[in-house]
């Protein structure tokens, strides 16, 4: 019953689960690695083997490349899949994997290096004939350079940590007053998270859309694009909702986007699945932003619309197999939307909300997919990215997909930690979102307005009334168990509540 190959997943959470699922379906055995905080995490439970690699902090576990390579060698895994985040775009780790005689499930190390440098990637794009946004070609060493650039191109500007990604180390600058503090903050975040305090500057489009093109290239010179994703719903430059296709991309524009993305892909010597990110202006013109040399968080929307399995394909390509599809076989059908469920409290400035998941009900049924990294009773550790799951829906068109999303959000229940679910329940009713009138500043603006107040107020009056009645009945039910004092304070809980509490406390989860 053992597979013919064995793959180590150098990641955790939902993406580790996603990769293990793909391996199961390919008959490939899997090895998980885990930190002390993840001893009983879902990816550990699902993998065929699991190897501890260090204490909770990522810097001492999931970022320790040499321990991960050791684990692969110890278990006989020949493939290493990095997922996204952690070491996924670390050329040094890719090289370390290959030097150990293992197969890296991703592009060659030198391509990661090339496209990981914003300045080099920009040069590749220019040479490939893809449009790029105005900006300085080299990192800013002196604030005076910033001022000169601002004088030439005007505000707003965008400061980006050279090694940054996923919204970390990015700062918007709206005027001269903000220039220096933003520069300091971008440098400090770059240093703290990526060990690199160099910062890059470019013109900021005022209401741009974030459109990205999925590309796949094999080791035999074939490459295709698999449509685009619209990732404009962001918060603090962090994607929150993604969809495919984009509401503003028609067939002709899709061709042009795809050709530009493929030109960059080919020029970089790419091999594996990857993503070319573009910024699109309100007039439909687009600019190369960067290339993500890895699997993307939001890959499921493309999978649902194109009927492909990108993780499977990525592993096939790493094994040297040829691309499964010709370009003309990749035909979009319907519309998919993904919501990233974060353990963050939208009512408290999106403060991270780690803790124990006391209740979990996931939606299912037609057109609904949940890629989850948590179990009921499990904990969301403080040490890692707070994304706990992705809810992805598909339907025949965008309007129906949004209605389906509303239905799925209604079924979705996570209790014990705060999540971004209430935000999404509000979003599906927003007229601008429903009409597809979105841009990268959309969500931040939405949360400033009266909708934020609505979020705080909670659902409609009828729902509030039902909740009040339910609470009154449940309070009566619980009070009935304590004849003397209806109120259960800490030390006065009824015996069964106490038993349950102790039961839960006794077993590490």
């Amino acid at each position: 019953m053992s597979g013919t190959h064995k793959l180590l997943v150098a990641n955790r959470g939902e993406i580790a689960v996603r990769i293990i699922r793909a391996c199961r379906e390919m008959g490939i055995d899997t090895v998980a690695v885990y930190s002390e905080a993840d001893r009983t995490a879902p990816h550990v439970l699902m993998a065929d083997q699991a190897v501890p690699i260090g204490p909770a902090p990522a810097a001492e576990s999931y970022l320790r490349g040499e321990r991960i390579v050791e684990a692969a060698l110890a278990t006989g895994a020949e493939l290493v899949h990095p997922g996204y985040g952690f070491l996924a775009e670390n050329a040094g780790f890719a090289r370390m994997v290959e030097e150990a005689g293992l197969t890296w499930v991703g592009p060659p190390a030198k391509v990661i290096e090339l496209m990981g440098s914003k300045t080099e990637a920009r040069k590749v794009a220019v040479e490939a004939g893809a449009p790029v946004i105005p900006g300085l070609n080299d990192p800013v060493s002196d604030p005076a350079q910033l001022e000169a650039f601002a004088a030439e191109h005007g505000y707003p500007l965008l400061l980006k940590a050279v090694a940054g990604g996923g919204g970390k180390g990015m700062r918007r600058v709206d005027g001269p007053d903000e220039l220096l503090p933003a520069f300091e903050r971008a440098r400090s975040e770059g240093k703290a998270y990526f060990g690199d305090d160099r910062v890059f500057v470019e013109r900021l489009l005022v209401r741009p859309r974030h459109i990205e093109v999925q590309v796949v290239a094999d080791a035999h010179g074939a490459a295709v694009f698999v449509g685009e994703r619209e990732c404009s719903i962001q918060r603090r430059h962090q994607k929150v909702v993604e969809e495919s296709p984009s509401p503003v991309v028609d067939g002709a524009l899709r061709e042009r986007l795809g050709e530009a993305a493929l030109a960059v892909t080919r020029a970089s010597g790419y091999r594996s699945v990857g993503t070319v990110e573009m910024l699109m202006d309100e007039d439909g013109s687009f600019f190369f932003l960067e290339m993500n040399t890895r699997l993307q968080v939001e890959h499921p929307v493309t999978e649902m619309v194109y009927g492909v399995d990108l993780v499977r394909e990525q592993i096939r390509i790493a094994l040297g197999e040829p691309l499964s599809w010709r370009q003309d076989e990749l035909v979009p059908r319907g519309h998919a939307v993904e919501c990233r469920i974060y353990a963050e409290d939208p009512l408290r400035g999106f403060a991270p909300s780690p803790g124990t998941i006391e209740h979990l009900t996931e939606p299912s049924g037609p057109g609904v997919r949940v890629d989850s990294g948590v179990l009921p009773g499990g904990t969301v550790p403080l040490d890692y990215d707070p994304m706990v799951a992705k809810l992805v829906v598909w339907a025949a068109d965008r309007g129906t997909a949004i209605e389906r999303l509303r239905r799925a959000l209604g079924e979705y229940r996570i209790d014990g930690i705060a999540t971004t679910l209430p935000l999404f329940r509000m979003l599906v009713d927003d007229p601008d979102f429903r009409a597809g009138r979105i841009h990268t500043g959309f969500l931040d603006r939405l949360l400033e307005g009266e909708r934020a107040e609505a979020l705080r107020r909670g659902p409609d009056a009828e729902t509030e009334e039902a909740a009040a009645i339910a609470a009154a009945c449940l309070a009566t039910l619980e009070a009935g168990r304590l004849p003397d004092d209806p109120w259960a304070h800490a030390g006065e809980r009824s015996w069964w509540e106490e038993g349950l509490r102790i039961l839960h406390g006794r077993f590490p989860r």
Partner: protein
Amino acid sequence: MRWVIRTPSGDREFEVERRPDGLFRVVDGERERLVDLVRLNGSLSSMRCTEDHRSWKVLAHREGRHWRIGLWRGDVALEVLSPAEAVEAESTAAGSGSATVKAPIPGKVVAVKVAEGDAVEPGQPLVVLEAMKMENELVAERAGTVRAVHVGAGETVDAGTALVEIGE
């Protein structure tokens, strides 16, 4: 049994009685409802109003008097109080002139942006806290004057730790 339910849109008072047939009689002013509520697995209950047949899947989470009720259209945060407690809570809230800003999560204090005696406006950054790979700015919820600062940059704090006191 009498309860004051404090919802985001105001207080409501209910008289609730469990009948011998297991149904709950819920009286709200002049309106009377019969409610069929059954506790299922863990925090899950089913609820039905017998008059209008309205039906709900109820997920209830309780911490002392604070409840969160999850229904199909979303979650509602409530307080459930006895009538005496309601009066008492009212007067406490009204009389308080100062607020304590607490750490919503465990984390590391990256920067403290205010000092004792500073005047602050709503939305003004007070403390930058790092947790879960993000820097989180804690801002003032109301205008006032900083009465005390309990932490310094570099300190690690637990959830609930008092960081800054703001008075009038």
